[in-house]
């Protein structure tokens, strides 16, 4: 199972990747299982957050640092 996830994560060395690819292509149990696990990983990856509004965060950071007088010369552009 661990090796399968390493394969799906593209973390296996090339030779092992090739071995795994051949095995999954032929094995009637492991092939569908790999596809099933890949669907899980795809669903998890789909939970990636959309880009944050960093302009607003940037303004907050600069304002906070300036307010605390840790960086008094900073000005928001």
């Amino acid at each position, binding site marked *: *199972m*661990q090796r399968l*996830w*390493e394969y799906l*994560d593209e*973390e296996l060395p090339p030779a092992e990747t090739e071995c795994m690819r051949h095995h999954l292509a032929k094995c009637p*149990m492991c092939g*569908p*299982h790999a*596809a*099933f*696990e890949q*669907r*899980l*990983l795809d*669903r*998890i*990856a*789909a*939970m*990636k*957050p959309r*880009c*944050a509004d*960093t302009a*607003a*965060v*940037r303004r*907050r*950071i*600069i304002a*906070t*640092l300036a307010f*605390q007088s*840790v*960086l008094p*010369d*900073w*000005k*928001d*552009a």
Partner: protein
Amino acid sequence: MPDSTLAPVGADFESTTLPHLDSVARFALSLARERADADDLVQETYLRAFRGWTTFRPGSDARRWLFAICRNAFLRMRERRGTLVETDDGDIDANPAVLTHAQAIRDGLGDLFELIDVRPAIDRAIAALPEPHHSILVLIDLEDHSYEEAAALLDVPVGTVRSRLFRARRMIQEALIAYAEDAGLGRRLPRESRADSVTL
């Protein structure tokens, strides 16, 4: 790009850290899941970074440094709110919850991902993951870091990243099984057979 002309220390801090703001903000959002919390986390990260600026080694990886600060700030935030759940690594292979495709078919869950919208369950399962598994899963599955990069960011061996990541995924699988069964899919298995379940 710098926002303004700064005093020497501020200018160094700005030119070194602000180019990573987008990455840090995204990482914070992956960790916190809520936009307001993420914004607070980014702000806290940069405040801590500025206060600890003298500990930064010039030429070292500023992004990695900021991520470490961000993660520590997140853990502190969870701790303050009483939502920090930690677990030991345990034996990954002792967890019977892993769902193989054959088992899924047997349990009536072969088409799990096609039959129901699993996004709410995955979202809650990620948020409910205990540390350190939560941070590992966020870095690799949501932030697309390699095992080696995640190991460097969290200062743990690659083998530890690997085992924690797989355990985290198993916990998510377990949460999905419960979610599917609650939605009327599959057959309900005895709860005692499920280690490391994540409550949704």
